[in-house]
């Protein structure tokens, strides 16, 4: 909009912004408020502001929902899947960006296909079932790891900006390819790696569909699934459910607060390219 916006329109704009801020913030405040109430207080005055915050709700929810096990599963899944996805995507994107491999174009096309093809949920399930990896951590991580087209394209664009002279310098100094890739190329593309890394991490941490399909033993649950099952069991105890929800959401919100720029950059760039 131009600079000369008339006052009534300005007021209208502020009203709209505040109205939508309310729609987005109220549910979050409600959850935080509920998570700090005693269950008696909640049943009597569900929407009043909490007067004596019950931080013990978080401890109770953590214990009752068995988060002590699930959180480590989630950390394992998130770390392994994110690192593996990032490395695999970078190892594909770099040679494509440099045309170091024959048929770079074909590879590019191959990954483009992935954006349009139908989801392969059922055959993937049959594959995991047939190979005996059903309800195992390895099987789940294999499914959750992925080289998606967006990260390959995102990286390809970034790697092009690294001067080719650097490749030559590295070979002259006797630096091996793998070492060059991991210690030079990836650190030099930090913003791209962080953007894609954060988006992947968020996706793995939040996963509920694949964990529902592939993980049946509680010892393998991720924390999101644990929270979901907990909510089903204690469906009327909203104070504990709200506390459990905030425990699951806390790492996401932390990552978001510190990496908002990278996450939004990642979304903007991948949407424009994809």
């Amino acid at each position, binding site marked *: 909009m131009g600079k000369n916006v008339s006052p009534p329109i300005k007021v209208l704009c502020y009203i709209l912004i505040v109205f939508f801020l309310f729609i987005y*913030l109220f549910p979050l405040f409600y959850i935080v408020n509920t998570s700090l109430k005693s269950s008696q207080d909640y049943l009597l005055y569900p929407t009043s502001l909490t007067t004596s915050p019950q931080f013990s709700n978080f401890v109770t929810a953590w214990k009752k929902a068995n988060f002590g096990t699930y959180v480590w599963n989630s950390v394992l899944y998130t770390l392994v899947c994110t690192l593996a996805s990032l490395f695999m995507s970078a190892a594909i994107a770099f*040679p494509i960006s440099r045309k170091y491999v024959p048929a770079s174009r074909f590879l590019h096309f191959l990954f483009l296909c992935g954006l349009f093809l*139908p989801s392969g949920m*059922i055959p993937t399930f049959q594959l995991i079932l047939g190979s005996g990896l059903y309800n195992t951590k390895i099987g789940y991580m294999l499914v959750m790891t992925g080289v998606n087209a967006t990260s390959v394209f995102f990286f390809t664009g970034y790697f092009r900006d690294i001067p080719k002279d650097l490749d030559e310098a590295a070979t002259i100094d006797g630096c091996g390819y793998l070492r060059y890739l991991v210690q030079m190329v990836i650190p030099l593309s930090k913003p791209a790696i962080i953007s894609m890394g954060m988006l992947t991490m968020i996706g793995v941490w939040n996963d509920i569909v694949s964990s529902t399909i592939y993980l049946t033993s509680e010892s393998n649950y991720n924390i999101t699934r644990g929270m979901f099952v907990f909510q089903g069991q204690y469906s009327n105890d909203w104070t504990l459910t709200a506390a459990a929800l905030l425990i699951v959401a806390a790492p996401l919100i932390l990552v978001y607060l510190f990496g908002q720029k990278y996450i939004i950059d990642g979304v903007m760039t991948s949407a424009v390219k994809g």
Partner: protein
Amino acid sequence: MNIQKTAASPGRMLNQKKHPLRLFPLWIVLLCMLPGVLHYCIFRLYPSMMTAYYSFTDISGVPGTTWKFIGLANYKEFFILQNPRDLKAALLRTAAYAFFVTIIQNSIALLLSVIVNSAFLKGRNFARGVYFMPVILGAAVVATIWKAIFSTPTGPIYLFMQNVLHIANPPAILSSRVYAFPAVIAAQIWQNMGYSMVIFIAALQGIDGTLYESASIDGASNWKMFSKITLPLIWSAISINTLLAIIGSLQSYELIMTITRGNFNTSTLGMMAFATAFGGGGGTASGAVVNGLRQGYAAAESMVLFAGVLVVTIISQILMKRAEVER
């Protein structure tokens, strides 16, 4: 043009051949690519193709059961043998879901992005950050928030209906055959609006500000500037957002699965395929294999959905292109 191409290509070929061999040995480059390419072929391309194949079989999710090729029987069941009312309801509901999500989500996103992007507004980064937040929270968290907000009889929506609107017996929204579906649509929009908004903002930031200055010197009104400068210049973003919202809402069932498990008239085609293949979804701690449902039929449902997505995508792109040309 042609001559140039043929003349240039031998040189390029030579260059390409010489370059990689001189720098890094080809085998190590390929070896590093191998895990990613293999994973992509096994877990993305192969399953994608096999969905089509399985749709002609009666394969099930129970391990160790035999299965066979049954031709078009699954498709016949879906289109002909099924109760026509069920078929119609499922298709209509899927279309309604995609339609309302696409239209409402993009309208709100466009409106808010224009405001958030305007120079006079204070706290725009804060507003943008808040609107985008549900995108990163994920389906399970958003669904649980939604359930808390709509819970009966302590949820704020229930209390609002009871105490402010003075409705005698407020319905339990999320377990109502009438209101659950709009509530799920609202959840989908609430979660993804920020995503569309960020794409619009990226497009708006790409517009050259001097265009507005010269237009306002010429005495153009705000609405004129919006319709004659802003809209045409962000048309590709509108096109991308429409496409993303259509594909996203047609295929997505995470929120439906986590909020209602497809009950109360909320099941779209994507949710149906999931429920057929893996059981009711949601909170069944026993998991999918025990229910062992008809994955061949579910594959056929997925293929119908894929065909639908393809057709709608192509039509919407043609319409968007035509609208662009007419401008």
